[in-house]
């Protein structure tokens, strides 16, 4: 195991994060605050409680997930796309590091950053809405698992993308709509019966439902199913990355 290699990649990526710390923090915190003001206070004050949880508190797990998913994908995809774009990937390809070590470095750093941000958003939410965390260990577990899984997914997007536009396509056209339709702002019980069935094909439903359960003990789908689905997605991403490195797809001619 090339521990120094993993550390080098991880530190390199974290240094990139801290270089742009101000932008990295301010934008998501500001956006989240706006969500709380608009949905939590303005609209939420006219909404009834959902399963005895105030609407402002109800949307917290969904908002954290929304940011966690977007940040994980953008951190990891940008992290591996940049060396491809700048040409510095030659060093990574000629270095004595295995694909798994490269992955630990990049995905580890991307996930670290998005978990930090997730916690920051939770802190910001506390300013606007009082809430309790019923299962803190599970909350952290969901946070970590989702951050790692979607950082892996972002890594794949970064490998696949050959332009900055493509880097944005998947998060904007797929992930954000899936998150909005995944129950970030509502319980799926509130949907018409047909849509309740259709929405179960959206993987983000399971993430938000599981995460919300760790806060309030309420869930749209069984928690075990949520965990199983997240692990399933994690494994799919892992296998895909393994295949990419094995065949050299898009990185080694």
């Amino acid at each position: 195991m090339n521990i120094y290699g993993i550390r080098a990649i991880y530190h390199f990526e974290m240094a990139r994060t801290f270089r742009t710390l101000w932008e990295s923090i301010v934008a998501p915190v500001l956006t989240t605050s706006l969500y709380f003001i608009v949905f939590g206070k303005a609209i939420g004050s006219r909404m009834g409680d959902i399963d005895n949880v105030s609407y402002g508190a109800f949307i917290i797990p969904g908002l954290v997930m929304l940011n966690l998913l977007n940040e994980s994908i953008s951190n990891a995809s940008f992290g591996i796309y940049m060396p491809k774009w700048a040409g510095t990937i030659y060093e990574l390809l000629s270095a004595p590091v295995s694909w798994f070590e490269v992955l630990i470095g990049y995905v580890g750093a991307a996930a670290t950053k998005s978990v930090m941000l997730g916690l920051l958003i939770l802190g910001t939410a506390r300013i606007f809405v009082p809430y309790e965390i019923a299962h803190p260990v599970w909350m952290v577990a969901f946070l970590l698992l989702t951050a790692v899984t979607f950082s892996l997914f972002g890594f794949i997007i970064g490998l696949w993308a050959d332009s900055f536009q493509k880097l944005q396509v998947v998060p904007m056209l797929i992930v954000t709509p899936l998150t909005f339709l995944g129950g970030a702002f509502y319980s799926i019980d509130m949907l018409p019966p047909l849509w309740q069935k259709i929405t179960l094909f959206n993987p983000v439903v399971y993430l938000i439902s599981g995460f919300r359960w760790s806060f309030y003990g309420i869930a749209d789908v069984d928690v075990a199913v949520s965990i199983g689905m997240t692990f399933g997605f994690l494994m799919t991403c892992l296998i895909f990355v393994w295949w990419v490195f094995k065949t050299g797809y898009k990185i080694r001619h």
Partner: protein
Amino acid sequence: MKTATAAMTANSSAPIISVRGVNKTYAGGFQALKKIDLDIKRGEIFALLGPNGAGKTTLISLICGIVKATSGTIIADGHDIMQDYRAARATIGLVPQELHTDAFESVWATVKFSRGLFGKAPDAAYLEKVLRDLSLWDKRNAKIMTLSGGMKRRVLIAKALAHEPTILFLDEPSAGVDVELRHDMWRMVRTLRAQGTTIILTTHYIEEAEDMADRIGVISKGELIVVEDKAVLMRKLGKKQLTLTLRRPMTGIPAGLSAWPLVLSDDGHVLVYSFDAQEEETGIAELLRTLAEHGIEFKDLRSRESSLEDIFVSLVHRPKGTQE
């Protein structure tokens, strides 16, 4: 396998790099390399020459693991670059042709990154020495994007040396580099060689290869057309020319001199005689006698040995199958 590897590493006369039957065809069908066999000797400076697109960078990229060979094997310092890629790659440093750098990083951060990436424990003293040797120490905290092209080239060299490689590849290191840096760089290359590092370089400046290299390989259209000791190559393929500046211009070469390989300049003032430098009998004395017999007088004469550049051009443009 391990025993064989250890024996090869220990045996200093064994080639440090051994390329056997390597072919490379890119996905689009372009065959960049055709059945390359090449041994690089331990501790030598090997210059790889060839026109643009000949396959120099592809060959280097294959050995460094950036590009996958279609077939064939490559052994670096006793390690198969595919089976035993960690050990093989740890011995190699690469300075790429293009100035690929992390623009927003500092010089110090980027060399530290390179050392770690190649699996070496941090060693600030060693990195300081590398940066000082390359006159980069004062710029260690500068962002790479603020440096000039020449300085960026130095940064790439520092990155390649950060993990103390025993084999160093320099792909067109002097492209776009000023004279001072070029001299610094070659001085450093000589120092590295003296310390036991094997250096493989590609260059467009043939005089550099002539000046620096122990051996020369010429690659053309994906084929290695010659690999030879530099001195032997120049002796074997070198031509000499005798240039005579005539006292009175001639309109053509007299019939009595038609048997000699003579070329008259357009203005009729200069007569050039080419002869094989290896031949015992150069024919100069006989030619001068014959010229005197024809009443051709000259006011100046000089002889010149062909440069590596001349040899290179003649090799690359020679019809296939005529080289040795």
